[in-house]
């Protein structure tokens, strides 16, 4: 039995090497020409607790999970039961575990999947320096039909620094696992890889966001760590340095956002990354960036909220604060990547827009995009750069920093430009930047700041629109992955429906959306938020045609394709 996609979970206690096995399987699949996607889950312990690597291997690009897992392999069973809700399985599934691996969790047993034993500990003892996780890797590779070469190649490369002995032990462990797999009950094997012309990348969404940032020209970053945004900053730290840029670890998010405002004012494209609690602290200064027209980009990797919420799990519930969290009338950009790879594109685009429009841009990524890893076709550089309109020539008269131009964008001088000194201000001001509470100045500057966002040509990037038919699924961000998959199934079952995934959340594009929904009689809104924030946003800013249904629920469990498919199939 071959399949175009196979889903596997590695699980085990801390130190069992579950993530290593997962990463190696992902790399091996990528090298052999398959696409792979991996998310991880861990217990409450800060370090060394139980962990699960949830994988999906596929013949075509894959950046989200399937409805269920075909294989669960537990190196031991300690606390693995707590991942049960995240590992849906049916009776076709196969659960592999070590009979000496501790008590078999009831919740896993309740899934009714087939079971088979692999004596990881015993087998590892028989190999000098043998490693249970490498045996598990070999067993899974054997089960799904990954070529031995690809797996051993990855093992060799990853252990290159660990010395000869460690490498041979791991190779022997992988081989032992593969040999053992031959005697295991069958599970779906991956169909042959569709030849790739270029070598794939292995990348996380957070790394992709970092890449998009530097591609766009970001050269100053201020950082305050917070899960799940930290890896954006951690990727940027060494890479910015290589580009001659700077990353400063700030004392808190109030400092990080103000540092980037300072650096940007000084002429260097600047960014920070955070998550909900950090974004909340930044809102006052986001308003400062808007009012002083200082371009900045904030990547917000959403997690479960409110308050400290669920730091390691995904949710689309920072939409409201990103859109409406600023006091006063403060038009700004909100851009949302809708796939792991799109974290690069959307971040780069946001950086470009922030600098072009001299305002604040919030990139709304989330944990499921940011902390997942996938093998992807190398994303080409779309060419967006942070380019600012600057004054030219000698300053003839007193510089009007906030000149009320037709486009709303005024030439922005940077320190060092003789004759162009001005004071940037968060107080309402006149065209010179001088504080003013005059009604005429207030309305003129409010209009200008709104206009520059409204009249800009955002091209086709405001949304991804796919398919046709009189049903439309309207979504954004990470739920786009399962929606795409649900729509494929819906079309395969004879249905017709289109996808509209909105990337430019703010400013709103009512005319474009109306055109995208031309002829639509039913709209299904899909989002991962308890409060239906996206649905309410759509209702506030757009006219939705025909009848509308909202499918929304909170994290931490991901929305699965079949849930969406059922919504479509049952709506007749």
């Amino acid at each position, binding site marked *: 039995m071959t399949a175009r996609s196979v889903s596997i979970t590695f699980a085990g206690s801390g130190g069992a090497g579950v993530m290593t096995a997962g990463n190696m399987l992902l790399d091996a699949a990528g*090298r052999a020409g398959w696409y792979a996607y991996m998310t991880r889950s861990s217990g409450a312990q800060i370090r060394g607790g139980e962990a699960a690597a949830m994988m999906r291997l596929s013949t075509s690009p894959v950046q989200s999970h399937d409805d269920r897992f075909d294989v669960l392999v537990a190196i031991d069973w300690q606390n693995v039961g707590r991942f049960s809700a995240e590992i849906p399985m049916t009776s076709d599934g196969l659960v592999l575990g070590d009979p000496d691996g501790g008590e078999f969790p009831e919740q896993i047993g309740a899934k009714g999947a087939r079971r088979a034993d692999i004596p990881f500990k015993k087998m590892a003892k028989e190999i000098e320096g043998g490693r249970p996780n490498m045996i598990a890797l070999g067993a899974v590779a054997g089960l799904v039909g990954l070529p031995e070469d690809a797996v051993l190649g990855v093992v060799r490369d990853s252990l290159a620094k660990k010395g000869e002995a460690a490498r041979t032990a791991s190779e022997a462990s992988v081989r032992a696992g593969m040999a053992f797999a031959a005697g295991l009950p069958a599970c779906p094997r991956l169909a042959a890889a569709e030849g790739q012309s270029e*070598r*794939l*990348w*292995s*990348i996380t969404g957070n790394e992709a966001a970092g*890449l998009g940032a*530097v*591609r766009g020209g970001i*050269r*100053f970053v*201020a950082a305050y760590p917070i899960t799940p945004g930290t890896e954006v900053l951690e990727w940027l730290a060494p890479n910015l*340095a*290589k*580009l*001659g*840029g*700077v*990353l*400063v670890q*700030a*004392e*808190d998010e*109030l*400092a990080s*956002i*103000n*540092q*980037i*405002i*300072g*650096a*940007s*004012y*000084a*002429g*260097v494209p600047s960014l920070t990354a955070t998550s909900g609690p950090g974004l909340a602290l930044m809102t006052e*200064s986001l308003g*400062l960036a808007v009012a*002083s027209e200082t371009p900045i980009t904030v990547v917000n990797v959403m997690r479960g909220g409110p308050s400290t919420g669920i730091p390691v799990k995904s949710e689309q519930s920072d939409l409201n604060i990103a859109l409406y969290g600023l006091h006063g009338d403060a038009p700004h950009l909100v851009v949302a990547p809708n796939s792991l790879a799109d974290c690069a594109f959307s971040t780069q685009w946001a950086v470009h827009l922030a600098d072009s429009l001299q305002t604040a841009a919030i990139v709304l990524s989330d944990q499921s995009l940011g902390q997942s890893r996938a*093998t992807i076709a*190398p994303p080409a*550089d779309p060419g967006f750069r942070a380019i600012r309109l600057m004054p030219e020539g000698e300053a003839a008269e*007193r510089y009007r920093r906030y000149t009320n131009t037709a486009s709303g964008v005024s030439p922005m001088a*940077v*320190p*060092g*430009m*003789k*004759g162009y*000194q*001005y*004071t*940037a*201000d*968060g*107080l309402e001001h006149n065209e010179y*930047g*001088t*504080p003013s509470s005059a009604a005429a100045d207030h309305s003129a500057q409010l209009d200008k700041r709104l206009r520059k966002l409204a009249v800009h040509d955002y091209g086709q990037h405001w949304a991804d629109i796919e398919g046709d038919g009189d049903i439309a699924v309207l979504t954004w961000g990470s739920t786009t992955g399962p929606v795409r998959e649900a729509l494929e199934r819906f079309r395969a079952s004879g249905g017709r429906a289109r996808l509209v995934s909105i990337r430019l959340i703010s400013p709103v594009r009512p005319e474009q959306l109306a055109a995208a929904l031309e002829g639509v009689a039913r709209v299904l809104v899909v989002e991962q938020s308890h409060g239906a924030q996206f649905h309410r946003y759509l209702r506030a800013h757009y006219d939705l045609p025909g009848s509308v249904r909202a499918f929304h629920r909170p994290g931490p469990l991901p929305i699965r394709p079949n849930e969406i498919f059922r919504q479509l199939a049952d709506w007749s």
Partner: protein
Amino acid sequence: MEATSTCPSYSARDYKSEVKPVWCPGCGDYSVLGSITKALAELSIPPESVALVSGIGCSSRLPAYTNVFGFHGVHGRALPIATGIKVSRPELTVIASGGDGDGFSIGGNHFMHACRRNVDMTYIVMDNEVYGMTKGQASPTTAPDWEKSKLTPQGTGINPFHPLVIALAAGANFIARGFSGDQNGTAQLITEAIRHPGFSFVQLLSPCVTFRPEQRDWKDMVHPAAVDPTDDPARAARRLMTDDGFNVGVLYRGSRKPFQPERQASVDSVADLEKEFVL
């Protein structure tokens, strides 16, 4: 962004703007504005090469009254903005300024960390022991028994914050106190603070004649410090133990290396970074 080839000389007036201050007649901050512009003229720094950043408060209005590149940010955040400017454009002369509420209360955390980080900039706090702009509430430097605020009619009952002690403990590289009434003396202090590498902190006693009219008497209370500046933090700390709050002059000159990350590219383009992703 061209550097000036010749070295023109400037007068204090070249650093002043046409904008009329909103300050009350007699406010100490007028004189501080004079001292800052005098110091810049003394140092002959081209106005376009100076960035002057502030937060919110009467004192924080200062940048708009100058002819340098200014940034009037939000309450308490002048130091992070100044840090971002200096770290990304080290060739600029960066000054942060503001009030005691701005710097020691809402911005207190940044004050401590700016001292520690030791970026090469100067921080001037116009201390009037009150929130002037919001019409007279107690600030961190207000005496515990000051009863004139409607918000704390019995006084705050808490000990005042000692900015010099904090600055020294947190690692500021240059620490001084001045009095706004002595415009030339203060200009000298600011000149030295700007020249000194690393984070220089200058506390300026600057009376709020409106909400603390008794501060008019400060002119008779300030006195030059009896001893010379020291480069020994332990000695500086001992001096602060007997400080009456009116000693003016330089207290401490440190020699800690300023924080300035290298900015040397080691790759030609972003594409070089992408290799790490290739399987």
